[in-house]
């Protein structure tokens, strides 16, 4: 039958296309890396590459978390200040209460999950638009961090090994030539887990389905509210991880930090090809987006471009990169 033929053909085509697509998705990133390497011999040095990766870790983790929310068609503006609040709570437990490391880490993630659950409840149950619900949360959490800490940073000097969470290198202990910071390792592990969740589990399937057509999912008898709350809570827990990473890197919970990080993370997600209207997106894309942003920032600095020109060039390259990606997708169609 004709259809049978076409099926086979398309199946093959689709697979080949998909592989090409995946490679080409990296194109902008690779072009950037090659460009900077040619422009400065200092750029493609193992140390600098590690700096770039390290600089990606916090933003990358945040971006992975918010990717899920964006796929549902929502948005989370509170991720930056939530990250800080989680760091603060970790600091409170570890430094003020002297709890063991693991309890601190658990507290950070639990705080994130709880706050995410609150946002999720506001969105799902109270039907407050995600933009507003999380804008409100962003302000509340910003204030809470300052209140809890009394506006002073909490230092982790007494917690043995806390800085190693982000800056140590398990990989480096095995392969000394490749001192990949733990923070980056954690980013990859988190990204891997979430990619798996999105691709293989019921939660992931509903994440996409909610963004694609929430009403249709609800009318399929799915308890959409509960799933949405779960997704926000999971994203919150991931913000908790970001909070632990950043505070471990700074050896302190900086209560004023965090505002503006949400925009950067969302930018990474969108540069990575996830649509803000929901229903489609990939974790690989988000990682590429986050990497593009940190390669750009680092590269321009290594080239000693004046800071005001750095901003201009960053703006232009982001547009061009996304445009190139757009063209690729269109031609793939």
């Amino acid at each position, binding site marked *: 039958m004709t259809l049978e033929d076409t099926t086979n053909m398309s199946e093959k085509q689709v697979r080949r296309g998909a592989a090409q697509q995946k490679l080409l998705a990296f194109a902008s990133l690779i072009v950037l890396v090659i460009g900077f390497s040619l422009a400065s011999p*200092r750029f493609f*040095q193992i*140390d*600098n590459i590690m*700096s770039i990766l*390290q*600089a990606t870790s*916090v933003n990358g983790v945040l971006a992975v978390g918010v990717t899920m929310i964006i796929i549902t068609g929502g948005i989370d503006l509170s991720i930056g200040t939530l990250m800080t609040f989680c760091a603060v709570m970790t600091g409170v437990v570890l430094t003020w209460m002297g709890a063991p490391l693991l309890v601190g880490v658990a507290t950070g993630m639990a705080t994130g999950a709880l706050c995410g659950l609150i946002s999720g409840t506001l969105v799902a149950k109270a039907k407050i638009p995600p933009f507003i619900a999380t804008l409100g949360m962003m302000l509340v959490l910003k204030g809470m961090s*300052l209140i809890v800490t009394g*506006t*002073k*940073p909490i*230092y982790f*000097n007494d917690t043995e090994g806390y*800085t190693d969470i982000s*800056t140590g290198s398990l990989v480096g202990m095995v392969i000394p030539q490749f001192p990949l910071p733990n923070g980056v390792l954690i980013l990859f592990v988190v990204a891997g887990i979430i990619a798996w969740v999105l691709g293989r589990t019921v939660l992931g399937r509903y994440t996409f389905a909610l963004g694609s057509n929430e009403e249709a999912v609800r009318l399929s008898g799915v308890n959409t509210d509960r799933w949405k709350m779960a997704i926000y809570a999971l994203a919150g827990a991931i913000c908790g991880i970001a909070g632990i990473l*950043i505070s471990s*890197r*700074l*050896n*302190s919970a*900086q*209560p*004023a*930090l*965090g*505002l*503006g990080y949400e925009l950067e993370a969302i930018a990474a997600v969108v540069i990575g090809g996830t649509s803000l209207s929901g229903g489609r997106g990939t974790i690989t894309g988000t990682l590429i987006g986050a990497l593009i942003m*940190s390669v750009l*920032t*680092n590269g321009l*600095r*290594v080239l*000693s471009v004046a*800071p005001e020109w*750095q901003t201009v060039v960053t703006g232009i390259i982001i547009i061009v990169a996304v445009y190139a990606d757009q063209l690729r997708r269109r031609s793939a169609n």
Partner: protein
Amino acid sequence: QDKLYIPLISKGFQHQFWQAVKLGADKAGAELGVDVTFEGPDNETQVDKQIDMLAAALAKQPAAVGIAALDSQAVIPLLKKAQEAKIPVIAFDSGVDSDIPVATASTDNMAAAAMAADKMGELIGGEGKIAVVAHSQTSLTGVHRRDGFVNEIKEKFPKIEIVTVEYGDGDHLKSTEITKAILAANPDIKGIFGSNEGSAIGVLNGVREMGAKVVVIGFDSGKAQKDAIRSGEMAGAITQNPVGIGYETVKAAVAVSKGETVPKNVDTGFYWYDKSNIDAPEIAAVLYD
């Protein structure tokens, strides 16, 4: 032919204060024949951004590096890295909790703000209500200037009541609105202290728009503050010596990288200026537009 390269990582670059520091650094760079770059994050909360900048600067294997740390501890791991790579570190504007920096060129912000408090006390006659519009609740300079001012008032002028301390992020417009709200809530207020250029201009604007009669004391320099002091709208302001900070930092960096020894602490000082002394040569030298 390879010029020495010295990057300065500051707390910001858009504010006039930092631009003045940059000016001094560039001047020293030109005089001493070294390449100087100057950058800093968008605002003073971005501790990790500053660390990324420092990392990128160290990747360039400079002769020495200058750092105005946003957090006195968070930069230490990277400073250790610099030490291992034998890159000397000069701290400027504010110090770090470590003996790695071979020199520190800074201003005592606490003392500077205390001087502003003394002047405020004098000018309002030792009693009445005043307010503070600070630029940050968390950054070191913000905290030091607020505390320096508030403590001095409490100690020396028990009859003066500080009705509120608000924070305007150094944003001119936000500080304007804050000032107006303070004036609305406290019509009998006698003085307001703005803790950096943006805050001071905001206070000035707010007072102007409300048509209030208030003693305004500012901090830092800039054309608008200088004009307002000349016209008497602003009673006076504290200025640091940003050009000097930049200049001394680069000078020390060059010296250290050539193996010379430098004094551990360079206090670049601060000055009170008002209508009476604004044109005096030693003051004019530390003011900037």
